[in-house]
């Protein structure tokens, strides 16, 4: 049985008269580093929202590890093992950096809510464990030194990395990164690229990412799907995409 980690089959969503994503299909295998690109308004983020349950697909199916997740609510999908970051950073602003990551980790822990209200030893122990795990992740994303600052006080690049750390904390099998390099300088992008590779190689996650920076995507991703106006116009390895006339037209068309 050849099972894909994620399989999007003919996914379509319409908002009123507007078809934001039209008949898009792609598959991710375990350990893929997969890119989703396209000009502005191509429907990339909407694809992420379909996969993570923010929107329900109008048509089509989405299978995660063989079972359908289309229409499940976001927190159920997170529990199944898909986590994400957001294009417009959505951190828990007034909480500290380490607390942001702990909230992600909360998902895999099992003490009852009541134990927290009564501050029972089990809850205390679990909180300590979560904190330790969160610190480990901050170490990986190179954020450990600002663990106790409020997340809103972090510089932009660090906020993006914190989002990834928070997503990693839910221990997902598949992680979706929505424009992780946006607003970063070349050096930060370089570091981010290394971090994403580490996530795949060391933590053995499957990664699906949206990115505008072509150099970033072409260097990092092994396979790429290109969307334009909600439709899939090309798919394949970076070299093929780079020379695909339809892709060039879509991007040039935007430039003109």
């Amino acid at each position: 049985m050849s099972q894909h980690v994620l399989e999007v089959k003919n996914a379509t969503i319409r908002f009123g008269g507007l078809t934001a994503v039209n008949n898009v299909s792609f598959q991710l295998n375990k350990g893929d580093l997969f890119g989703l690109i396209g000009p502005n308004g191509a429907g990339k983020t909407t694809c992420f929202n379909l996969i993570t349950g923010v929107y329900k697909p109008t048509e089509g199916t989405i299978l995660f590890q063989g079972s359908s997740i289309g229409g499940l609510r976001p927190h159920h999908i997170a529990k199944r093992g898909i986590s994400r970051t957001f294009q417009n950073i959505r951190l828990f602003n007034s909480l500290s950096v380490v607390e942001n990551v702990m909230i992600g980790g909360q998902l895999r822990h099992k003490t009852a809510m009541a134990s927290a209200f009564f501050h029972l030893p089990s809850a205390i122990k679990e909180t300590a464990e979560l904190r330790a795990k969160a610190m480990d992740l901050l170490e990986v994303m190179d954020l450990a030194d600002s663990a106790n600052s409020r997340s809103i006080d972090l510089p932009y690049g660090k906020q993006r990395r914190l989002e990834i750390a928070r997503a990693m904390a839910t221990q997902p099998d598949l992680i979706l990164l929505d424009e992780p390099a946006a607003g970063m300088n070349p050096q930060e992008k370089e570091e981010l690229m290394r971090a994403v590779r580490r996530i795949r190689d060391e933590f053995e996650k499957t990664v699906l990412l949206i990115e505008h920076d072509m150099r970033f995507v072409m260097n990092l991703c092994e396979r790429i799907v290109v969307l334009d106006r909600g439709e899939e116009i090309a798919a394949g390895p970076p070299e093929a995409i780079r020379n695909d006339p339809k892709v060039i037209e879509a991007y040039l068309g935007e430039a003109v």
Partner: protein
Amino acid sequence: MKFWTVRLLSVAAAFAFAFAMQGLGSVIGDDYAYRVINVSGIFITLAVSLNLINGITGQFSIGHAAFYQVGAYVTGYMTLKMFDPGGMHPTLWLIMMMFVGAVAAGLLGLVVGLPSLRLRGDYLAIVTLGFNEIIRIISTNIPEVGGAAGFNIKPKIVEPWLIWMLAVICIALSRNLLKNAHGLTFWAVREDEVASSAMGVNNTRIKVVAFVVGSALAGAAGVLYGHFEGFLDPKVFGMQQSFIILTMVVLGGTGSITGSALAAVFLTVLPEYLRDLKDPTGNELALNGGGIIGVFAASILMIWAVKRMKTMFPVKGRNRSLAEVGAHLVPWALVPLLNAVLASTPLAANTYRVSELRMVFFALVLILVMQLRPSGVFGHHEFSWNWLKSLFSRFRKEQTA
């Protein structure tokens, strides 16, 4: 075993505190002050439990008095019909009623919360306000609980230590929650629902838990209030009451348990304190029309001056602190000044006793605090020994600088 030693000691401390507060009431010896002190204990529970819903979980509930009322009425009726003075010890009965009232209010919280918590912001606010009014109006239409004339609960069971015990429990539950990882998910819902659900947090469940626990605590507070007073006026549970509880939460600093508790005491005691204010000659304090104009003029001037000081002294330091204190205090000199200067003009024809003005002052305090400290007096801060230490060290640094 260290854990259980600490836990046992804190429970003992809670009991000691509760009985000390009960003792304080009888030491004062003044019936009126005794009542105000204990009612402020009830409001601590109300404010801290609403803080769990509004402050910590970020839901906009402005109908908290409904749950307070349900606790009071349901158990008041049970005491009236079922309490047997020869049978159970009254204190034990009251404790039992506290649980009954909490369950009743909690169930109502569940019924209200499940469908309405998917509404956002202002819509949730108006639905909770609506439930508040519906419950109150229903109570005025049921003759068995006294209707509009009010409900006599017989017998009264007065156990002030229970009021304080409940306040301590309420504070402890909130604080415990925030100390643990579970509590973080409540903050997460408040900060960003989309992000929290992407992190696997079941927003609805968190909201309902906060709503039910908050309502249950308010219900228990209602039980104690009803049996303490022995008489319930349905008007006391209207939306004005809910606004006052909400005000305590916001004034103290939304999300801050310390702030809610202190604001509850402050706002309960302030109007009563104003009622008894005397001038130096021992008469009841009064202002003439000039003084009233002075109060309004001083308020406006104070807001202006405090904001101005911040721009005039951009650097925090000794000068800035002094300027701010001055800006807060100096404008109030206008009150006695205008009170005296305008005394002979027609503007000053009427005099107003401070006890008549107390609700005006209450409203002014509300507006002034919001203008000068919009996130409440405590902001997001909590009382802790470390916080106190850092405050002192900062103060010392300023002194040496």
